């Protein structure tokens, strides 16, 4: 099975631009309901993404990591397309801003009161900030 042709075509698209377009042998996706890894020949799948890392393995230009927050991914047997709201390379993450975001998230959480929507919102902010920090600190 380990044929060199068994390569996934991967596209990472953000609202602003196409960030990445290449091939890879495996892709890790931060699904909203859980982390998953996609290999060549995966069954067709549509999923919402949470905040976390997209990792590409076996890409011609080496492994790559992108921190994405919220989006969607379509998986086809030979192709993966990721629509991310925002995607950053680990080097692009501003730790200071991420920390601020985390604080803001906690503040939102404390102020959320009984509103479920406010809690969800706060959780999203916190998850996003934590994912960014995790990606950023991993590299050092």
């Amino acid at each position, binding site marked *: 099975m380990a044929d060199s042709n068994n390569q996934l075509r991967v596209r990472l*698209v953000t609202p*602003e631009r196409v960030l990445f377009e290449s091939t890879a042998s495996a892709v890790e996706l931060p699904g909203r309901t859980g982390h998953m890894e996609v290999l060549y020949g995966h069954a067709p799948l549509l999923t919402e993404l949470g905040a976390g890392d997209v990792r590409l393995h076996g890409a011609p230009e080496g492994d790559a990591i992108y921190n994405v927050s919220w989006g969607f991914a379509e998986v086809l047997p030979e192709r993966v397309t990721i629509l991310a709201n925002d995607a950053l390379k680990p080097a692009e993450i501003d730790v200071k801003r991420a920390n601020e975001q985390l604080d803001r998230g906690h503040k939102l959480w404390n102020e959320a009161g009984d509103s479920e929507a406010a809690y969800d919102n706060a959780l999203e902010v916190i998850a996003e900030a934590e994912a960014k920090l995790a990606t950023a600190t991993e590299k050092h």
Partner: protein
Amino acid sequence: MANVLDLRRRIRSVKNTRQITKAMKMVSAAKLRRAQERMVSARPYAQMIASVLDSLTRRIDIFDEETGSLAHPLFAVREEKRVLLVVISGDKGFAGAFNSNILKTASNFLEGAEAGREIDIEAVGRKARDLLRRRYPVAEYSEATEEKRSTRQSRKGRVEMTGDHPGMLLKLESDRVLELAKSIIDRYVHEEIDAAYIVFNEFKSVIQQRVIVEKILPLIKIGDQQVTDSAEPTAEERARAGQAAATSGVPLTEADTHEAEEEDKKFGTANVDYIYEQPPAELFEALLPRYIAARLFHAMTESVAAEHAARMTAMDSATNNASDMIDSLTLHMNRVRQAAITKEIIEIVSGAAAL
């Protein structure tokens, strides 16, 4: 008659102006190219969102069993009693009729529309905000409490400003646009508004653009543009724009992205049974705000490109006018100088003759 010195001073001043307008034209041309690139690179995302949504609408489980229509609040068509208008203008002047065209179309919408319709305005771009603020009162809201969302105080007029976003276009970020989209959706879902429109300058290429009013809510069919009003530029304006583009090296036609677009359209629409990690209805729900945001974002990128194109054209005209003016002033100056010389010679000659 002005003397030679005055004329020379004038010519120098016009020359300076020409240099400035020329520089502004080149800057606008460079910015236009960048804006066009951004426009093109933002397209795949918008296209993919539309495709996957469209494919999702064909799944049965998000339809209302009784009515057979889409069971989603954003597809609910209501009588338009209160509508929202998003006006996207430029941030700066010196762009010819760009801002005034948009504001004219917006005014037509505000004043000409079926009377009795209450209209809220969200202004994106400083020019629209400045003008509309002067004309219409700002809406007031009561403080939001924990269990209650903020409610609107009584209206001060038929048309009110509910928000403005100056500087949003200067640094176009999808996050801020998404926030705006979410706020619009929130208002629609809570029935504060019955429809949402957007006024902006559509930009296909330098010579192919128009100001349009587009309906973004309620959604009728994903991927369809609902244009309710449009104002095309005159042939003369188009010719001017083409000329300006030609002299500043901006391509008149778009790069051919047809093939890539076809590819994007396939996103999420492959004829297979997808495994849905989340229930389709949930995916649908989460995708819709992004779709609206992508529409807004798209409108804004086009508007930014159109603004730069308009400024480039205006500055090209200004440069040409300055050149014409310099020519005529130089001619005038030479005549005056010649006249002075002739006069002096006549004086000398007649003086000599009198001796």
